[in-house]
């Protein structure tokens, strides 16, 4: 059976959920061979084996943290050369897309980004993508070379599928470009204790109607009652009420959770682009004409300062 390379996104050995989703998709095409790089790489093997990795290729070096992107491309190319896979799958983060594109160029292949589904096909893997602010769905294939495909979080379930997961050291020679862009300082983001926005099953967002950073506490309380991530519209971010890392929309994150709750968000195309593929959509907005209501499964026309606290209290009391 053909092997499929899976690039592992991990933090000091802790494998992030989107990588486990990639293993589910990789098993539809072939046998997953994982590539884990940097500090803690070998520690990923347990989780990867549990979810279907037959092999885990690892390489630890300071370059992965000290320089931008290229060392990882060099390593993934080394894995490609060693394995000759049927496809290469990479999580669709900003960095993941850059790594995938550069690898594709080097190996003379096409690259598909932001797939939301992947299936085996007669002429190679077929990716499903969303286009034009998710108003279209396309089916796309790579026509030349080995398909390199990045996949968005929440595109497949995480499935237990125990496999050998034997660890092998990957032999990597860094290219002349590897040390071109130096990372001179790194400030880790402070953990909020909430789920990662793109990975969360539920996202609670606030927009212009929240009317001030001091009021985002209401949104956070609702999110916490549901174990959800917090998002914000561009209007709220541009106004400085909430960090850009939480922005949902065309120039922020695009999310596809089971449940999306939009509070005080009108639903402009910019925002819809980032949340339209959510399974269930709920909105609270005082403007009955707001375009967000065209998308909702359930909407409340009302003042979010009345509705949201009541909702939070009701959820907490039902849980209690």
């Amino acid at each position, binding site marked *: 059976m053909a092997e499929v390379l899976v690039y592992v996104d991990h933090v000091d050995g802790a494998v992030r959920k989107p990588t486990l989703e990639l293993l589910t998709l990789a098993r539809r095409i072939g046998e997953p061979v994982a590539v884990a790089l940097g500090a803690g790489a070998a520690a990923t093997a347990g989780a990867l084996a549990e979810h279907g990795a037959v092999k885990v290729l690892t390489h630890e070096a300071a370059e992965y943290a000290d320089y931008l*992107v290229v060392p990882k491309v060099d390593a993934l190319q080394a894995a490609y050369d060693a394995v000759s896979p049927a496809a290469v799958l990479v999580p669709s983060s900003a960095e993941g897309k850059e790594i995938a594109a550069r690898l594709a160029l080097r190996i003379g292949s*096409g690259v598909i980004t932001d797939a939301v589904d992947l299936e085996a096909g007669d002429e190679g893997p077929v990716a499903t993508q969303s286009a034009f602010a998710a108003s279209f769905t396309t089916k796309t294939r790579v026509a030349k070379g080995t398909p390199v495909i990045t996949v968005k979080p929440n595109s497949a379930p995480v499935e237990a599928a125990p496999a050998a997961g034997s660890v092998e050291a990957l032999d990597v020679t860094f290219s002349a470009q590897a040390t*071109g862009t130096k990372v001179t300082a790194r*400030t880790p983001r402070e953990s909020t204790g909430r789920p990662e926005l793109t990975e969360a099953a539920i996202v609670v967002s606030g927009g212009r109607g929240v009317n001030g950073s001091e009021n985002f506490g209401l949104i956070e309380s609702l999110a916490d009652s549901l174990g959800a991530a917090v998002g914000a519209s561009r209007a709220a971010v541009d106004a400085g009420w909430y960090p850009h*890392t939480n922005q949902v929309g065309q120039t922020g994150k695009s999310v596809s959770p089971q449940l999306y709750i939009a509070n005080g968000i009108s639903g402009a195309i910019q925002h819809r682009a980032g949340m339209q593929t959510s399974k269930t959509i*709920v909105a609270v907005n005082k403007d009955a004409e707001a375009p967000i209501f065209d*998308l909702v499964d359930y909407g409340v026309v*009302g003042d979010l300062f009345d*509705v949201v606290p009541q909702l939070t209290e009701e959820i907490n009391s039902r849980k209690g």
Partner: protein
Amino acid sequence: MSLRIVVTVKYVPDATGDRHFADDLTVDRDDVDGLLSELDEYAVEQALQIADEADDAEITVLTVGPEDAKDALRKALSMGADKAIHVEDDDLHGTDAIGTSLVLAKAIEKAGYDLVISGMASTDGTMGVVPALLAERLGVPQVTLLSEVSVEDGVVKGRRDGDSASEQLEASLPAVVSVTDQSGEARYPSFKGIMAAKKKPVESWDLSDLDLEAGEVGLEGAYTVVDSATQRPARTAGTIVKDEGEGGKQLAEFLAGQKFI
């Protein structure tokens, strides 16, 4: 010596229009008005600011696209760029990201450069990979997705705000930079700028000017194939209630019914 900045820009269908695919499954450019991709305005703005700080700098805006794409160049020139290059050729129709990066890289090399600045992604394709591809093709450092950028003594520095950390980056010129919409509001062209732009030079190059063959680009040369494009069915109309004092409880009832609580 003059700092040569090349800003790559894209002419895209207006995102607020009814965007769709043409019969050959390429992006339809006839039925929706086009314009300079909003995210590229940030690249033009940062180029202007870097040029202001430099003793001597020249900004060239570069686009690959059909005849109408000149509008995007004009907009960038009216913001303050010095000159423009338009790569236009019928054989370019349907070119994918890999092919676009090839054409841009050839044109950038022909134009001469110290610094390439791009937006973070186009607003139509939204892949966000062309800057990385340009760095790979040109063999120069990639300093991408910056929310802050500066150039001094032949070194570009910037801040990249990622999901898990904020990183300070540094590379020697020549380099490829991309900037996000957090890098600073783009200026509006002044009346004077608009008038001046009409006199600024716009060069037109075709594939032969770049020593490229038709088969290397276009739909034929594409590394990816779109097999189908279907419009997402409109979401079925949901229940909308007006808050009469119980809106939060009603919403909770709905969420409980859907097993979210």
